């Protein structure tokens, strides 16, 4: 979470980067253009044409970085040795695919699959900027760009295909659901569409997508608690009961993270198993736990199933995360933890 002061600082920083433009020449050019346009419109007035201007939203493509704070003593290497990986520093992990594979962004403008066993990379698609919202299935990847979904096979040959356009304002979550891709926006609810095209279908109003088939009535106000988690396939609803005094809960189907005064609090959605686990916080984009199990923060990963806090040691204290993958720079390489490789809790 950020503060209003940080927002003001970001705006000032960006504003200072405005480039010099010869405004007077531009104004003069616009004035001339208007005059010419008016003359042309007058000539054409007998023949009226109606132009339909379509509104176009766009989705930018930022990375999802976060910066850690305190450095605990132990490392993740001893607890989950098979989940720790190292790869060349020119890549950035986007998401965990399986226990041995990661989806990564290459600085040459590629989405690639990294196989940690063979240490080989396979190009999936080339695009101008790293995708912001990515969904990974077992055999395909989908991402949002402009107002469309792009779908590409993870293995074998096949170009990325564009489907859509997606419906909704400020769509910020996307997930693969069998032969469908589903997405949600904070204002418009959940939609889905077949990966090979077709018309978008509205699945739920007032809900935000978790991992398919789960959705939640996550409120926009970060202080407010959601009230229910819904299985969109069965329609079954599970009530969320906040533990006493806990605010801003963000939940998966089983586990939630919220705040009580200055404490980070983990609880089950029914309000049981309340645990204070300092330093945890929501992911900047997807506040729910990865695989309904893992939270992160304070340079540690918290496994809610095992009730275990597993610290990691990022060399300079800075680390980032994708879906199910946490990583940091170390001696020019990229080192990280693939949470899909963590075995089930005992």
């Amino acid at each position, binding site marked *: *979470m*950020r*503060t*209003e002061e*940080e*927002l*003001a600082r*970001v*705006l*000032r*920083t*960006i*504003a*200072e*980067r*405005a*480039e*010099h*433009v010869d*405004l*007077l020449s*531009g*104004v003069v050019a*616009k*004035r001339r253009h*208007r005059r010419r346009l008016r003359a042309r419109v007058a000539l054409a007035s007998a023949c009226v044409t109606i132009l339909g*201007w*379509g*509104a*176009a*939203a*766009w*989705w*930018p*493509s*930022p*990375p*999802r*970085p976060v*910066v850690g704070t305190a450095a605990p003593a132990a490392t993740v290497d001893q607890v989950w040795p098979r989940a720790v990986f190292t790869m060349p520093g020119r890549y950035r992990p986007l998401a965990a695919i399986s226990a041995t594979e990661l989806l990564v962004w290459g600085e040459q403008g590629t989405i690639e699959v990294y196989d940690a066993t063979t240490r080989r990379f396979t190009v999936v698609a080339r695009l*101008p*900027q790293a995708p*912001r919202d990515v969904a990974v299935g077992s055999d395909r990847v989908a991402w949002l760009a*402009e107002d469309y979904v792009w779908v590409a096979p993870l293995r074998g040959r096949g170009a990325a295909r564009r489907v859509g356009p997606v419906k909704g*304002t*400020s769509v*910020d979550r996307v997930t693969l659901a069998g032969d469908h891709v589903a997405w949600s926006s*904070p*204002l418009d609810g959940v939609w889905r569409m077949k990966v090979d095209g077709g018309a978008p279908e509205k699945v739920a109003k007032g809900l935000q997508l978790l991992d398919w088939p789960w959705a939640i009535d996550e*409120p*926009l*106000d*970060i*202080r407010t608690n959601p009230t229910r988690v819904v299985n969109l396939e069965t329609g079954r609803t599970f009530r969320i009961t906040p533990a006493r005094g806990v*605010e801003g809960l963000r939940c998966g189907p089983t586990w939630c993270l919220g*705040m009580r*005064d*200055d404490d980070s609090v983990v609880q089950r959605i029914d309000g049981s198993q309340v645990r204070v686990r300092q330093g945890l916080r929501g992911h*900047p984009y997807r506040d729910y736990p990865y695989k309904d199990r893992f939270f992160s923060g304070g340079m540690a990963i918290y496994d809610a199933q095992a009730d275990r806090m597993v610290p990691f040691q990022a060399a300079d204290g800075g680390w*980032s995360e994708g879906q199910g993958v946490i990583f940091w720079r170390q001696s020019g390489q990229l080192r990280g933890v693939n949470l899909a490789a963590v075995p089930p809790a005992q």
Partner: protein
Amino acid sequence: MEFEDFVRARGPALLRYGLVLTGNADDAADLVQEALLKLSSSWRRVRNKDDPEGYIRTIMARQHVSWWRRRRREQLTDEVPSPVREDEHDLREIWQRLRALPPKQRAVLVLRYYEQLADDEIAAILGVSPATVRSQASRGLATLRIRAQALIGRW
């Protein structure tokens, strides 16, 4: 002051304001020039009676909101150089989120946190009620995952 002198003196500040309003340099220049064109046609009246800078900033905020409602984007934003470098992770993340906000929400946040205006001043500029300003700001902040001190006062 002549119109040309005003543009030379205040142009850079207007471009800065335009950049945070629109999200990219091309749209910012377009917005400023469009607003200056309007200002130039009423310059004699405005320079003597009113505050030209306040006047043009109001034009820009309103123009920005209405443009985005009906204007087709003729170029991909990716083709316009970003003011944020690839390695400025934190800055880039919040900037991209800000750019993706609906135009009215972004305008409210810019007026509140960049222009440092009160909600009733923002309401007057955008021609909406103060309650709408508050709700737009609240939605925008929530989407940006920003702690709103005014809303929660604690974290």
